[in-house]
């Protein structure tokens, strides 16, 4: 009888210990290691959370400095220094898949440092619609170069100068629908053909185009676009948009070796008017959302909100146009 009781008590103690361990385990933060992408990236890179329940994470940089951010405006980047763990708590109010990522250009493939938090539970899941460029039937991957077309200006088009002709411009030119589907070059051609603007020189028409582009953004949106660009895009495209970021030479060398336009390419030079003035805002929006097809330009649709993408698009055109504010 004593032996039996001993066995039962022993098992009871184990059970209690197991319960305590299970409780303790479930209340421990999940440790996420950060290493450069070539050495593993974020580990683990797939986390599960429940709507309304805090998700505690202990973030550790194993090699060099990294940042940890969660897309869709959930969490701005937090700096991770080697040997200095950072604890964070996230709570999600909607189910869905949220991407965490780094903004630190720690290596050529830093954009591969991504993972997802799968948030499960009750709540409305948004039904996804096809992206705008698909709805509009646009081909993101066709060339958007102006080629030999004369641009008709020798200095950056100025929104301020364009504003001086506002009384001549029909309100429909400023509509969002037109802005989205026409490239600046196409808008220029429409304006040039408008008899109401016959008195304007070509460079003045370009100033009007800059004014129309400026009217489709605002200072707050442009500032957000600038910050997003400098944080996430400048490492490849360069701080001034010239396609000369810190990884540009490496990407160019890979492209020359591969000789394949559907694999890694040099970053786009946004200061080249022949590229950007021929690109519709809806195309730029799509390229940011989806990424370049195999070109080394990652998809940002899982990270940026739609509004952020439009603000980034607006900022890109500031590499061509002089805005007033």
């Amino acid at each position, binding site marked *: 009888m004593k032996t039996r009781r001993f066995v039962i008590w022993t098992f009871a103690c184990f059970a209690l210990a*197991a319960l305590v361990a299970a409780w303790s385990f479930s209340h421990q933060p999940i440790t996420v290691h950060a290493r450069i992408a070539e050495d593993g990236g974020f580990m683990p890179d797939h986390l599960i959370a429940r709507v309304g329940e805090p998700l505690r994470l202990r973030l550790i940089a194993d090699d060099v400095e990294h940042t940890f951010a969660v897309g869709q405006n959930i969490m701005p980047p937090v700096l991770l220094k080697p040997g200095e763990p950072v604890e964070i708590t996230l709570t999600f109010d909607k189910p869905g898949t949220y991407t965490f990522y780094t903004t630190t250009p720690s290596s050529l493939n830093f954009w591969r440092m991504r993972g997802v938090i799968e948030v499960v539970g009750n709540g409305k899941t948004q039904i996804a619609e096809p992206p705008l460029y698909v709805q509009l039937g646009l081909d993101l991957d066709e060339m958007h170069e102006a080629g030999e077309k004369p641009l008709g200006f020798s200095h950056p088009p100025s929104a301020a100068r364009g504003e001086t002709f506002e009384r001549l411009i029909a309100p429909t030119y400023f509509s969002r629908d037109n802005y989205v589907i026409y490239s600046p070059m196409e808008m220029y051609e429409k304006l040039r053909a408008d008899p109401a603007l016959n008195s304007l020189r070509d460079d003045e028409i370009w100033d009007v185009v800059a004014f129309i582009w400026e009217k489709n953004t605002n200072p707050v949106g442009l500032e957000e676009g600038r910050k997003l660009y400098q944080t996430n895009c400048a490492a490849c495209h360069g701080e001034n948009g010239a396609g000369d970021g810190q990884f540009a030479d490496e990407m160019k060398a890979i492209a020359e070796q591969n000789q394949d336009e559907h694999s890694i390419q040099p970053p786009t030079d946004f200061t080249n008017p022949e590229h950007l003035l021929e690109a519709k805002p809806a195309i730029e929006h799509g390229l940011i959302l989806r990424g370049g*097809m195999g070109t080394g330009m990652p998809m940002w649709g*899982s990270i940026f909100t739609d509004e952020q993408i439009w603000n980034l698009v607006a900022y890109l055109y500031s590499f061509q146009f002089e805005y007033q504010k």
Partner: protein
Amino acid sequence: MISKTRQLLFLSLIAVLWTAVLSACSSQNKTDDLKMLPAEQMPAEVQSAPVMVQQAYQFAAANPDLMKQIPCYCGCGDVGHTSNYDCYVSHVDDKGVITFDNHALGCSICVDITQDVMRMTRQGKSAQEIRTYIDATYSKYGSSNMP
């Protein structure tokens, strides 16, 4: 005095608890349980790529039947890719020698999709279930390369 039935119930409960605790505490290597082509059989540029990209190439090359049923949403339908598999493998000859495609080395969506396929395969999901998930997750970014 505790009856034998109660003792049995009590011991069963303990066993269940232990199993739960042990499974919660265990860690699993991400690729141990998946069919993968050895890393040594990958081209040099794949071997020097980020770990997640290497794994995607190894998995895709080793699982053509599954991967040919999975669409890609990166836009590669325009260059003749008919599944996510084509983002990794451009040709397999009669002797089974694989010619790899560099496309996925610079493709964000391609590798994300494959990583999802790997995770769901580990969870025991069928090809159809995986495809349904991929379609639902990635159609907001682009067009499928499969009809």
